[in-house]
């Protein structure tokens, strides 16, 4: 007896009880669609985190001053002055795995243009900082090394500051604004980046040569932070090791003594941010998987009922020459068809739901091929697993008793 006949027989038997077949299938449809939806939502929130972290910079490595402890009390890093501009020069000249490096100074300042004013964040860096932080110019041009040498009073401003300080249709380029009491010329504007994962506005930024921020605004001789780009994601770890070695040597830290700085990579930040969303996804997927198991038990239940109900048919098939294996396969086929069709519907429904959710949440829509393939395999396995016992029961019936069954 060939497989085609088998499928045909199983299909016809199912069609004799359309409503029941549909309801049985529904369990699988709900199970699979919720698994697909949950995995889809998980993946798209993961992707949106990835997106935002990579927006922070290209293979970004951040070197911060270490937090201090005094008599067991953490006093933060405000009083630590361990990073200097010469460290930046050392890193720029002595590393293989770093493509760009910049000192970073942060300040908050009142930014004023005529009647408009805005408390905004000011960032100082060298000419590479824009590349490291993935900022792109919208209009105008970046400052130059010459500007850095001259502590030039020039600035690139982010979208939020443009909106706060300038009327619409006014080109900010060439205008002079005040940062605190210092007049500064706007030489460029940055393309908007939106909010990051923590809800911070990345467009509320005024970028200036670091010398200007360091000497004219802050008046300090240390560096707040060093930002660097690794050559590629793969060598990020090597770059970190390199940075640590150079800085330890430069700061003359003894072997075994603690660093006076901290190095973090983008991957670490990513990991931190994804851990919570990953946990939620796992939890929700687990709940969805339970509903799939319940659906499978539904199939098993109905198959048992079917076998009992069709005892006479089984007896007849045996009496006209069906092997036990044919009976087994027929019933197995029925449960597999139920679960596969249910699975297909579930996959379609799940993809649709995760699409809708991602649209509502404003996250990227990702079709997880692995989840789709896995669900399909799980469906077939569910059909076989939960169909096996009822089918076995059918095949082990005694034809004489089965024929007499009323």
């Amino acid at each position, binding site marked *: *007896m*060939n497989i085609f*006949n088998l499928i045909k*027989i199983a299909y*016809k038997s199912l069609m*004799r009880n359309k409503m029941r077949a549909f309801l049985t299938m529904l369990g699988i449809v709900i199970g699979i669609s919720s698994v697909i939806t949950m995995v889809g939502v998980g993946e798209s929130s993961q992707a949106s985190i990835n997106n935002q972290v990579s927006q922070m910079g290209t293979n970004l490595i951040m070197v911060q001053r270490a937090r201090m402890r005094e008599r067991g009390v953490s006093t933060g890093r405000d009083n630590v002055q361990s990073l200097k501009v010469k460290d930046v020069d050392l890193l720029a000249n002595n590393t293989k795995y770093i493509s760009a490096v910049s000192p970073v100074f942060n300040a908050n300042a009142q930014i004023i243009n005529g009647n408009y004013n805005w408390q905004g964040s000011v960032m100082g860096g060298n000419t590479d900082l824009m590349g490291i932080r993935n900022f792109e110019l919208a209009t105008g041009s970046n400052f130059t090394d010459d500007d850095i040498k001259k502590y030039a009073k020039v600035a690139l401003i982010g979208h939020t500051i443009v909106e706060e300080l300038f009327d619409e249709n006014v080109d900010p380029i060439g205008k002079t604004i005040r940062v605190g009491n210092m007049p500064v010329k706007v030489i460029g504007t940055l393309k908007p980046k939106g909010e990051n994962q923590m809800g911070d506005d990345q467009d509320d930024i005024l970028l200036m040569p670091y010398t200007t921020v360091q000497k004219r605004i802050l008046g300090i001789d240390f560096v707040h932070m060093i930002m660097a780009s690794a050559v590629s994601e793969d060598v990020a770890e090597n770059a970190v090791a390199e940075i640590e070695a150079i800085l330890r040597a430069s700061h003359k830290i003894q072997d075994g003594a603690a660093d006076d700085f901290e190095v973090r990579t983008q991957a670490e930040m990513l990991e931190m941010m994804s851990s919570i969303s990953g946990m939620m996804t796992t939890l929700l997927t687990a709940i969805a998987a339970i509903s799939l198991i319940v659906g499978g038990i539904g199939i098993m239940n109905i198959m048992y009922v079917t076998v009992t109900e069709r005892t*006479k*048919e089984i*007896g*007849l*098939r*045996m*009496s*006209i*020459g*069906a*092997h*036990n*294996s*044919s009976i087994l396969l027929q019933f197995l086929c029925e449960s597999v068809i139920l679960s596969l069709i249910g699975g297909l519907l579930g996959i379609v429904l799940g993809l649709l739901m995760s699409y809708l959710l991602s649209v509502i949440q404003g996250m990227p829509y990702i079709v997880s091929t692995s989840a789709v393939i896995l669900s399909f395999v799980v469906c077939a396995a569910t059909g076989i697993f939960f169909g096996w016992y009822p089918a076995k029961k059918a095949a082990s019936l005694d*034809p*004489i008793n089965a*024929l007499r069954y009323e």
Partner: protein
Amino acid sequence: MSQAILQIENLRRVFQVGVEQVHALKGVSFSVNKGEFVSIMGSSGSGKSTLLNILGCLDTPTSGEYLIDGVSVKERSKNDLADIRNRKIGFVFQSYNLLARTTALENVELPLIYNSSVSSRERRERAKHALEMVGLTDRMFHTPNQLSGGQQQRVAIARAIVNDPVIILADEATGNLDTKTSYEIMSLFQELNEKGKTIAFVTHEPDISAFTSRIIMLRDGHIISDKTNEPLSAMLEIQKFKTSEIIPNS
């Protein structure tokens, strides 16, 4: 001498019921030749069901020899027995046992589905031919609930002959039908018998066995009589019905 289809030699069947042993068949011997129309008679408990199960290869004897079409069924596997049932035996049951919501044609095709040497086209042709033989050409695509009892039994008979068996085993095949329809079914069996089919018919009704050419009587697991019979023509009996019926212009 004509060819023996069934040969039974000192057949015994013992059932174990709890601690007791029940001897359903206590040494039965007979043979059925090709072209015979045999009825096996007996009251309930006589062992005729057990005998039929063994003849139908649904059950195996405790001892004794049973050859069907020259093949011994002793110590055969379940699958071998299933193949013998599929190729050599046609069953007709009292309650028809048709698949519900399945057309007559598909019901008749059923035994051939389990025979991998028959293509689906051949299967359809043979099923159509079998339905023609039982006079149901115009009911091929009707489902059992659209057919009368007599028509359903005809479909069942078509299903029994579609695999061209060496013997048709009928188990109280007229038990669920009224007298007139029973006679029509017996007429069909007689017709098939005239075309060369060998038929074994289990019944407890003497007026049904009167249509067969040989009557074997069983009682308490023994054959108490085995004699040839001059069969009544079922066709003539039906005509008698028609004349005695007082239904004008029916």
